């Protein structure tokens, strides 16, 4: 503040000095940014619902009542229901060992955890075909024992687990790193067991990061297209997930039906964004509340002084 007053007195009054832009520049930039977002984000979203309702509400509901659509919805829920918990357990284990300890090769391990993010979904599907497919490593053995993995549910679950692999771990690792070990160490010193420490100290601290990671992981698991497409086999009513069913309908020129199923996925995306934003705001509020407490009373557990 002092600097600013000095500056404005030493400079001529004709030139206004400030550390922000003139209002017209601000509003032009805001307009440009919002225009870009409207064009690239809002319009596609709107288009899904408008196309789905093009022939009225009845045609929309009719498209969703179809047994193949129901089979696709059920399959998508089953796959996400298996893949997300698997990656949840992994995410917690990985973040615990990476964030709470120092060991050799930690940076390398973190890179490997991130690896599935940069692998193309099509390559992710292909690698499971190479392991479990008819020509793959385990193909002959699986055929002998009559176990189907590729072009069946297990393969689709595996491909989904692969593409959503880092989601939860990646949210939790930086969060747990920033929180440090002190609270857990205090719990252990006070006689808590490892599990008690995890349940009563670590889990409440990482609650918002966990919700955030699970919700994004779930959105990707339900929406995955490329990887699942490679291992699915595209059997209608049996191995088509919702995104694959959208593709089939779209290629058959059943536009309304395709967009009707797509609109359910778009709703899922919107719900995901709402939950994610609420989790973020809640987390920020808690951080702010903790920061505003006096340093010698960092937590709510300490009874506050009466303001009488």
């Amino acid at each position, binding site marked *: 503040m002092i600097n600013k007053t000095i500056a404005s007195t030493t400079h001529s009054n004709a030139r206004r000095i400030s550390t922000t832009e003139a209002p017209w520049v601000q509003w032009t930039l805001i307009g440009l940014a919002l225009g870009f977002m409207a064009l690239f984000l809002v319009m596609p979203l709107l288009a899904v619902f408008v196309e789905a309702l093009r022939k009225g509400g009845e045609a929309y509901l009719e498209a969703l009542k179809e047994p193949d659509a129901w089979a696709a919805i059920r399959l998508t829920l089953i796959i996400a229901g298996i893949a997300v918990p698997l990656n949840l357990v992994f995410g917690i284990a990985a973040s615990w060992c990476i964030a*709470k300890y120092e060991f050799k090769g930690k940076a390398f391990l973190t890179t490997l955890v991130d*690896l599935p993010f*940069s692998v193309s979904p099509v390559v992710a599907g292909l690698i499971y075909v190479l392991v479990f497919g008819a020509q793959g490593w385990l193909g002959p053995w699986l055929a002998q024992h009559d176990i189907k993995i590729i072009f069946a549910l297990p393969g689709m679950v595996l491909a989904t687990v692969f593409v959503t692999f880092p989601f939860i771990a990646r949210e939790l690792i930086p969060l747990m790193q920033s929180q440090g070990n002190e609270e857990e160490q205090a719990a252990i010193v006070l006689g808590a067991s490892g599990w008690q420490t995890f349940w009563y100290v670590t889990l409440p601290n990482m609650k918002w990061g966990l919700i955030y990671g699970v919700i994004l992981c779930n959105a990707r698991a339900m929406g995955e297209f490329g990887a699942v497409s490679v291992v699915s086999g595209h059997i209608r009513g049996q191995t088509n997930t919702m995104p694959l069913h959208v593709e089939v309908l779209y290629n058959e020129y059943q536009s309304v039906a395709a967009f009707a199923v797509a609109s359910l996925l778009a709703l899922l995306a919107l719900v995901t964004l709402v939950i994610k934003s609420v989790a973020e705001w809640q987390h920020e509020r808690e951080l702010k509340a903790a920061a505003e407490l006096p340093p010698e009373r960092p937590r709510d557990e300490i009874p506050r002084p009466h303001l009488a």
Partner: protein
Amino acid sequence: MSSRKVLPGFNLTLGYTVFYLCLIVLIPLSALVFKTLNLTFDQFWAAISSPRVVASYQLTFGASLLAASVNVLFGLLVAWVLVRYDFPGKKVADALVDLPFALPTAVAGIALTALLAGNGWIGQFLEPMGIELAFKPGGVVVALIFIGLPFVVRTVQPVLEDTEKELEEAATCLGATRWQTFGLVIFPAIAPALLTGFAMAFARAIGEYGSVIFIAGNMPMVSEITPLIIIGKLEQYDYAGATAVALMMLIISFVLLLLINALQAWQRQRSGAGA
């Protein structure tokens, strides 16, 4: 376990992490390498250098580069507006940035196609001007811009929030114009984050499949992306060819991942030195 590790569970969690990583990621990925080793070098070279495949590299890399560049420009703009200015609906706009993460790629693909087709909301205005995007390589770029936007915004945003206002005030006091302050003070601080965002958007764009295939038209030599080449070879039971092209893509992903890691380390160093 060393005596410094007070917390229990290190062996259990590290063991499970490594086990699960091997089972889901490393062993299947190694299958790709071993299967490629079954090919002679000539077979491998023929698979990855046929004209149709080379044309797909050009499209995939060109479109990804273009899309990531557009994302850097508009991603910086969106991040800047969200961090620095106040306007009605800011929270909604902020939440909406993540839409491409949450919206399934197939849905994005058919929605963008519907918008850009000759009779679509946007396409009907572009077509009289001679601009055709749907079922053309231009459509690929549009889809990749959609996919990559959040990467740039979400890497630049926190860095922009952390830049010290004092530095800008000092620059202003020393007589810098707003442009000079941006170019000489703010931009160098956010440059590593911008580069990281660019690399992430680019890496994602190279592998992208779902949103692109609906809008590309998928004409061999013209608008066929590399992941689609792999699918095409698989459908013709050309496993060797598919594996060879996939290995190429995997190597590129690896290089990009290492690059992104190096960039992030640089960024941390920068912000650490600045604090």
